[in-house]
Every structure is written in structure tokens, then in C-alpha cells.
């Protein structure tokens, strides 16, 4: 077990109008519980608004839940910001536009003191190579790169801290299909090579099918079905899962 999620709820208060005193409550997450085991790839599937991104941010401790607990395995996760990393969906907003690629990758190395100063450059080059970015990228800025390349840079940055657990929130949804396939293969390769655990969030069933070993299906802040990937696709139990599969199939 690497992570146990217990009955997480996240409610947002929203004002109904400029002059109204009434407040509406949006239940982004309404009682979500599941377990992630080491070296799993957990796929989280659902339409927009089902709460998947809110869940990711809570797991990453970027926002706090209204109620419920997160239990990380303290033997495995010793330094949270180092052991748990993230790749976000939007490649155009995930990198500081004013920084050079070298600095972007070097920064986490510096923050966590992973390598001494003289070893920074070789380590950065190594990370870029792993992610499939050419050497001459070092002096350039994010704006010169395509969406797929930027996600690779985000990947290199996340891998810099040598994480154990990677949360991927729709990391390829905004990319061309051919690039999506390349990135998925890269994720799979790295997972094996670096012995990582993944939570892979997507609205695209075919993508999740390709990469996940276990799947949870979310709808309106709740989990409606969970199980091994093959089973979800061949013997879906909930009506909602069946609707999703139908839509994806024809």
C-alpha cells in the first residue's frame, strides 16, 4: 500500500448572484475512498466536472479536503515534495515562461540538493535525454517548444527529484493522437525502468485502457465502479460505465 484515500469530501461554496445572500454548495468530491498499491497504475476515468482534478490536487496536498483522510505509507513516502510529483494537463501553463529550460530542470535539483553544483549540468542533460528532448534545448525558453515537447520537459522536471509516486492529470489530452501514443509509451517505459507508481487521470477510456492496471470510474464526485482494467472493459457493472463504453465504442 502506498496511499489510502478515506472518505474524502471537498465542498465549495459559491455565491448565487451579486445581490443574493444565498450560497450554493458545489460538491466536487462527495465521499471518495480507494487504495493505491506500490507499482500500480491506477486509472481515474470520468467526464469533466466529476472531480478528478480536485482529487489530484488534494492528493498532492495543493488544496485541503473539507473532510476525510489521506494516508500515505510513511515508510515509502519520506519526503513528500520529493517522493510525490505531478504532470498537469495544460502544457502551455505548466512552465514558467521566463525561465530557460536548463533552469527549469535544475531548480528542483537545487531545491532538494540532489546533486552538487558541478554535477548539475550533466544531470540536467541526462534528464532531458530520458524525456526525449535534445541537448540544444538548454538555453531556450518554453515558448519555442510544441505542446508534446513541453510535456516532456515537465516530465524531466518531475523526474529530477527522483519521485516514487507520479500523479498524471490528463497529461496528454491536449496533444495530437500520434504524440499521445508516443508519450504513453514513454510513461510505460519509465514506470518500469524507474519503478514508479502512477495515478493516471483521463476522460479518454482508450488511453486509460492502454496504460492502467486498475481503474476507478468517477461521476459527480463519487466513485461508481472500480476494478482491474480488463474487467471494467469486458464486464462493466454500473450503468454509467456502460454508457461511457458505448459512447467510446461507436
Amino acid at each position, binding site marked *: 500500500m502506498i496511499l489510502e484515500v478515506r472518505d474524502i469530501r471537498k465542498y465549495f461554496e459559491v455565491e448565487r448572484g451579486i445581490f443574493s445572500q444565498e450560497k450554493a454548495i458545489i460538491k466536487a468530491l462527495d465521499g471518495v475512498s480507494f487504495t493505491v498499491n506500490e507499482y500500480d497504475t491506477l486509472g481515474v476515468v470520468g467526464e469533466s466536472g466529476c472531480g478528478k482534478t480536485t482529487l489530484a490536487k488534494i492528493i498532492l496536498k495543493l488544496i485541503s479536503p473539507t473532510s476525510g483522510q489521506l494516508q500515505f505509507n510513511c515508510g515509502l513516502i519520506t519526503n513528500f515534495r520529493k517522493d510525490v510529483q505531478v504532470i498537469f494537463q495544460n502544457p502551455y501553463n505548466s*512552465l514558467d515562461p521566463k525561465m530557460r529550460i536548463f533552469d527549469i530542470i535544475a531548480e528542483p535539483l537545487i531545491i532538494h540538493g540532489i546533486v552538487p553544483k558541478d554535477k548539475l549540468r550533466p544531470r540536467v542533460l541526462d534528464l532531458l535525454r530520458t524525456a526525449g528532448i535534445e541537448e540544444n534545448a538548454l538555453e531556450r525558453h518554453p515558448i519555442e517548444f510544441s505542446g508534446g515537447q513541453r510535456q516532456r520537459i515537465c516530465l524531466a522536471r518531475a523526474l529530477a527529484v527522483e519521485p516514487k509516486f507520479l500523479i498524471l492529470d490528463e497529461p496528454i489530452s491536449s496533444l495530437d493522437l500520434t504524440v499521445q501514443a508516443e508519450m504513453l509509451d514513454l510513461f510505460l517505459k519509465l514506470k518500469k525502468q524507474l519503478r514508479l507508481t502512477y495515478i493516471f487521470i483521463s476522460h479518454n477510456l482508450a488511453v486509460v485502457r492502454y496504460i492502467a492496471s486498475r481503474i476507478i470510474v468517477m461521476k459527480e464526485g463519487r466513485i461508481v465502479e472500480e476494478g482491474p482494467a480488463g474487467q471494467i472493459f469486458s464486464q462493466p457493472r454500473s450503468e454509467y460505465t456502460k454508457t461511457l463504453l458505448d459512447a467510446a465504442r461507436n
Partner: protein
Amino acid sequence: MLVIGILSLIAIFAPFIAPYSPDRIDEASLLMPPSGAHLFGTDSLGRDLFSRMVYGARISLTIGLIAVGIATIIGVFFGSLAGFYGSWIDGLIMRFVDIMLCFPTFFLILTVVAILEPSIYNIMAIIGLTNWMGVARLIRAEILSLKEREFIQAEVALGASHRRIIFNHLIPNAIGPVLVSAVLGIAGAILLESGLSFLGLGVQPPTPSWGNILIEAKSTLGVAWWITIFPGLAIFITILGFNFLGEGLKKKIG
């Protein structure tokens, strides 16, 4: 940009350009119109106007730059804290900004100057201390919108300290509009200093400042047009120059 460039060069190289020392009194040449010997003419004490203006350029520009520098540093400091931390810190700082904005700053400056000795340093400090609020608001707004972008969240996830996030990521990305405001602010500061000097509350004679040269202009208006025209023109062109620079920067950034 050209204007500012030339102006800065003049200010820096003042001692080499000015043909005479600004204080040199030539009793034989009182109130002479522009001529070969005296490009801009002389004033009622026989001092060469051109030289005085060149040195005055130095003074005015320095005051403008430093005053705006002070204002920017204070503004960025308060604005970033307010924008980044939000909640009660934001509330507190913004109320402070509102209070400062309520003060009629010109009168505040007059009062302070009347109490303390008017000196160059006081002027710089005072203008700086009363003009940081706009900058604070600007940078707070930029930071509030930047905070929502994923790259800031990624920095948090990477374990970056608050200080690193503010100084290495938020401020460099937010600084654009602040720079534009600063450049335009220099124009304002120079105008303010000229006004104060004209009223006798700014730079004190014999140190030349375009503003205090104009003091004499009042009494000699009919007789010596050059004492009025040249400083006035200089102030006008400088302000225009900085405004153009600011507008140009705005286009480049936006």
C-alpha cells in the same frame, strides 16, 4: 528612446560638456541673450545658463530615478506579499494602501518639506514614499492572476519555498506593467521635483535644477526670454520622452 538616451548622456557627462562651472559668476555679462560664448545666455548673476541646465539635468534625472526606485521597491514588496498570501495579510496591506491614497500627497510633501530642511535626499525620499501605492496594486493584481496558472502550482509541488516562488517566479513574470509604470513615474517625479524647486521647497540654489532656474524666470520674463524658454522646453521634452518610452514599453510587453 533617443531623447532619453541623449539626456542621460548629457547628465552623466555634465562636467565635460558644460563650458563653464555652473557657479561661475561673470559680472561683466549679466543677463546676456544666447550667443556664441553663452549658448543659452546668462542669468542675472552672470552664470552661464547652458552649464546650469546641464548640471540641472543631472540633478533632476537622479532625483527622478531614485525616487521612482524607492517607490517601486516599496510597492513591489507590499504588493507581492498581499497578492501571494491573500487573506488577512492582503486585507491589512490593502487597507494601508487605501489610507495612504487618501492623503493629498502634494500637501503632505509640502508639510514635510516645510518641517525638514529641503535637501536633495529628502526630496527623493519623500517622492518615493508617497508614490508606491499604484505599483503595489499593479503587482498584486498580476500576482493574483499568476497564482492560478499551473506552473506556480507545479513549483509548490516541487517543494519550492515561498521566498523562491515569490522572487524567482512570481515577480519576474509580474514585473512587466510595473516597469511601464516606473518609467511613466519618472516623468511624474521630475515634474514634481521641478514644481517643488520652483516653489523654493525643492532643490535649493545655488545647486541648479530646472525648477529653480525658473524661479528667476518669473521676474525676468519680459527681459530675458531665454531663462524661461530653455528650462521649460527641457522639462517638456523630457516628460514627453519618458512618456513615449513608457508607451513603447507598454506595446512591447502587452
